[in-house]
């Protein structure tokens, strides 16, 4: 770990962090555009060409507004809660493999912040810290509705973490490792000659459970019960002003990106182009770094596809009732997750015996 490597590492971490953070304004714009498309209306097109500057305008507006702190709240917790929400969202990026590697001079650097051999578990661990933001936010703002909102959203996140873990266990059984990078390598090649060797074809049920649980994890519709405008006034972040409110939304969007990234990595082959293996591509292009760029682009397109699905689902499905929510998680998802594990176990047993 000499000096140069450290600098490259720092720069790489910073670049990836900024890259992921940029996804948030893009998503805001996209969300409005797709919502408008679904609702057959033009969407934001005033600010800048085709409304592309709308997210910038929003950001500036949020920055400029006042951030009031109500009198009878716990000052410290109230102000720290939004950051408690943002921190885990940022930290969970560490394990995401954007690409294979790039070279500077003769040294190779991985195209991900850290290749942890407990990668997937790390993501879930950090993911589970997201609850504190909502809990402390709701409790600190000393407002009956926000407290109940916080409790509800916490219960929802909590009860959907288990199906998340169970869903992924199927994939882990198949890949035999928790490091995301290895998972991507294991998904190269073809399945039965026709389909790309992606996890989703091996683990359709697992993917389904994970996909639904991912929605609940990020409080996205149809699970955004806590922030329902009508009933609970915007849930736990009612009292928050400009920037704190914005950080909660930022945290939500980053969590969405992380979840989509994990889905792409585990089930859709990460940075793999379906029928083109890395070596073939490298032989065509020649330079390793350009190949890295292509890989990153492929990774981000897949992530964007998932994000659009998020938005699409949000504006189509109606909202769940709270008890339906619970029933879905404990009654349906967890059993399906267990069944998936059993099926994978048996499948692997026969697959390896052959």
């Amino acid at each position: 770990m000499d000096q140069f490597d450290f600098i490259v590492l720092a720069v790489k971490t910073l670049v990836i962090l900024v890259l992921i953070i940029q996804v948030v304004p893009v998503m805001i714009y996209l969300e409005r555009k797709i919502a408008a498309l679904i609702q057959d209306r033009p969407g934001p097109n005033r600010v800048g060409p085709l409304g592309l500057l709308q997210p910038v305008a929003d950001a500036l507006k949020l920055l400029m507004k006042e951030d009031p702190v109500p009198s009878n709240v716990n000052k410290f917790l109230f102000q720290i809660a939004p950051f408690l929400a943002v921190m885990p969202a940022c930290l969970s990026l560490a394990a995401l493999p954007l690409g294979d590697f790039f070279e500077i001079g003769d040294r190779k650097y991985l195209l991900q912040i850290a290749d942890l051999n407990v990668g997937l578990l790390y993501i879930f661990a950090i993911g589970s810290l997201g609850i504190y933001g909502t809990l402390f936010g709701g409790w600190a703002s000393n407002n009956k509705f926000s407290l109940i909102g916080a409790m509800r959203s916490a219960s929802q996140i909590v009860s959907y973490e288990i199906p998340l873990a169970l869903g992924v266990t199927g994939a882990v059984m198949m890949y035999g490792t928790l490091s995301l990078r290895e998972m991507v390598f294991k998904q190269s090649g073809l399945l039965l000659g026709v389909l790309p060797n992606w996890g989703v074809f091996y683990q359709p049920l697992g993917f389904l459970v994970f996909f639904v649980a991912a929605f609940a994890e990020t409080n996205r519709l149809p699970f955004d019960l806590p922030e329902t405008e009508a009933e609970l006034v915007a849930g736990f972040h009612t009292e928050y002003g400009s920037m704190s409110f914005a950080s909660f939304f930022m945290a939500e969007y980053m969590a969405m990106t992380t979840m989509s990234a994990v889905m792409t990595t585990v089930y859709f082959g990460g940075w793999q182009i379906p029928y083109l293996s890395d070596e073939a591509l490298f032989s065509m292009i020649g330079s390793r770094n350009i190949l890295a760029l292509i890989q990153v682009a492929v990774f981000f397109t897949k992530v964007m596809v998932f994000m659009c699905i998020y938005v699409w689902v949000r504006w189509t499905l109606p909202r769940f009732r709270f008890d339906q929510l619970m029933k879905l998680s404990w009654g349906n998802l967890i059993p399906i997750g267990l069944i998936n594990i059993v099926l994978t176990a048996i499948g692997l047993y026969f697959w390896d015996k052959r």
Partner: protein
Amino acid sequence: MENFLPVLLLLFFAVCLCIGIYTVSHILGPKNPNASKLSTYECGVEPEGSARVPFKTHFYLVAVLFLLFDVEGVFFIPWAIIYRDSLKEGTDILIAGGLYMALLVLALSYIFRKRLLRLH
């Protein structure tokens, strides 16, 4: 240990981000608190009594169940990791996993049986 260094860096950058957001919004944002802003927003209704009214234990129960099932879920992961390799030596990994799964299912059915979570 080395590969956790970037995590540390990431943590550092995230903290800087938060602090940055906090300071920028405080510098730019105007500060003129008045009574209505400072009172908690009850969608127009005057707030009365302590906000922290105790509520049904339902939420607590969900959290406890999550804790216990989370621990059981976590145990699945090491089992999943070595499942494929030790499958070659024999099926005892399968039996262990099966036993574990059975107990998990038993616990789950117990929850449904008790109907305490209004899941029915």
